[in-house]
């Protein structure tokens, strides 16, 4: 299972690329890492920032790096907390495409959002919470 919080936190001393490498090595998915990581970073628009420390990232870039760390390793369940809160429209479109791909691969995705567009495009099943009560 993978969880991406709404405000991801990172190691001060590791660059974006090193964070990806850390996660990939921890999960033993180093085969083809360089190519896979480059593809992922380019899709998320972080390739030029791969050698920067995350504390110099904007909020949107931090969210994208959090997503990259989630997607670099295999998963069956993906939890996302407000994944579009800091993304621009292009970023949202990109995220929807990626999530749709993983959904088609059989992954279960659970996300919380205030974005109706995200719900319309991705939601197979929706739970609405109003005043702390789950509505249908």
């Amino acid at each position: 299972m993978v969880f991406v919080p709404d405000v991801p936190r990172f190691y001060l001393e590791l660059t974006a690329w090193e964070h990806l490498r850390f996660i990939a090595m921890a999960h033993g998915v180093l085969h083809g890492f360089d190519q896979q990581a480059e593809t992922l970073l380019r899709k998320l628009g972080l390739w030029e920032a791969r050698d920067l420390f995350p504390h110099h990232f904007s909020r949107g870039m931090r969210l994208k790096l959090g997503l990259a760390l989630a997607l670099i390793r295999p998963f069956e369940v993906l939890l996302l907390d407000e994944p579009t809160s800091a993304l621009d429209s292009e970023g949202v479109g990109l995220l929807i495409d990626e999530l749709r791909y993983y959904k088609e691969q059989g992954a279960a995705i659970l996300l919380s959002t205030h974005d109706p567009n995200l719900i319309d495009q991705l939601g197979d099943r929706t739970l609405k919470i109003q005043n702390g009560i789950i509505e249908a």
Partner: protein
Amino acid sequence: MQAVHWLRTRQEEYELSYWLSFVAYDQRDRSFNNRIYLLYIILFFSVWIFVVLTFFASAGSIILRLVNPLNPIRAALFLEILLLGVWSVVAFWLSLRRSPVVFSEEDEVLICQTPISRSLVTLRWILMPWVKSGILFWLAAIILGFSVAETSMPGVITANRILEYAGYGLRAWVVVIPVHLTLFALQWAVGILRLQKDKERQGLAWLVIPAALALFSFLWIFTFGADSTARMPWSQIVSSITYPMLAGFGQGNISISILTSGLFAIAALAVMVWSSGTFSLSRAAQETREVDTLEAASRYGFTDYARQLQDQRRLGVNRAPTRLPAFDGAGILIWKDLLQSQRSFHLSSAFIWVQLFLLLLGFAFLPDLGSRALVIGFWVIQLGQGSVIRLRGDLALWALTRQLPFALKDFLLFNQIPAYLLSLLISEAGLVMGSAIAKTPMDGMAILLPGIAASVAGLAAFDVIRQARSNMLIAGYVPEVSAAGIMLGLVATAIPLLIRSFIPGIIGLFLSTLMSLGIGVLAVNLAYRAYHHMDAS
């Protein structure tokens, strides 16, 4: 401008109330009792500071006689000029690298982006930083004044001569105030000139070299050249600068001295105001808001956040990918630890480890059990705090580290192993070196250290983890080692040492070693159980 004055006054009051809170005085309490308490605080600390300064003045009088046995007043002036001069050169250099005028993030929004008169803002801003900077020099001047009194006043200084004695210190203080203000305002003026509205003057840092040379020449002429070359121009310049300050130590007219140095201070302030006409407040705020945040975090006890800000500044923006060899699986934690240590290394981060080394280096020199127990106590405290630095850092990234595919025990072990091995190596090195220098065998202690270090590190980790809550970890809040953790570490250290001291010979060594290793294993298991419990809750 009224708004700026109001805002700055509020900031100054807030700062003052912070310092007054150390003596339990609440500015907001307008009761009669509280005002009496304020009077009491003023009187108490006036007397207390006076007494403390007289102690320093006793040592100061000895130093004055060493510097210039024939003329202690000249010695006092030399020391005062040296202090002010060195500080000026350093402050001058710092001003040329970063704005001396510090603005917070709130100031940046409320003031720096408005069309307010820059000169008036600078003039209003200088008060608090000047006072904070000046306190040390004022105290130094008073101490020097008292030292001069001790060398000048004949006979024993009794209670009925207190006012005369205090007068020496007061005179020196009154003279140094405008002198310090002059130098402070000039340092601000230089820093402000660098940051003008339409341009930033780069590369002015080289100006510090002629400033340092001028200081050196000044001191040289004052010390060796003024008497023999009294008619030369440079001697006249030196004399005109030193004359007002000499009056602070009893040579010369104090009124003329204050008037002269006061005029210098006003002139320096005028230069500062003139230089701020097109001062870029926004650029100054950009350069200093982080400094302000860091100072506030350190002052109000947010030490983790302050350390994080300092590390961010040191790391800079980017780095080329590391070439450190890495290992798959849980071994990647060691790779991460090495990389973090390599990139965040600086003198203050090494301080804990240096302390471990020095404490055990001195252990062999101590004659009795009591002093050794004290040293071991400090060692336990430092080791406990140092051994959980990485663990706390990883727990602060709970959302990231919890998802790593390692067994909980592996995560804990690989997290703690580098710190444990480093602390053990450093401690053993200190102990062995101290033992060799003092020619006192410490074999028993050296054998016990691995178990004791494991106990202390394990119990410190246990203490941090038992206090942690996953909802707080998600937000990045990680508890520190508490008093309970330190007490556990001390007890775990004391048990094998007591066994060793009560049961002599090889049997005592064997039993104490077994006990220390046993407690070490127990401590690690406790930490693991606490981690498992936290994870499950």
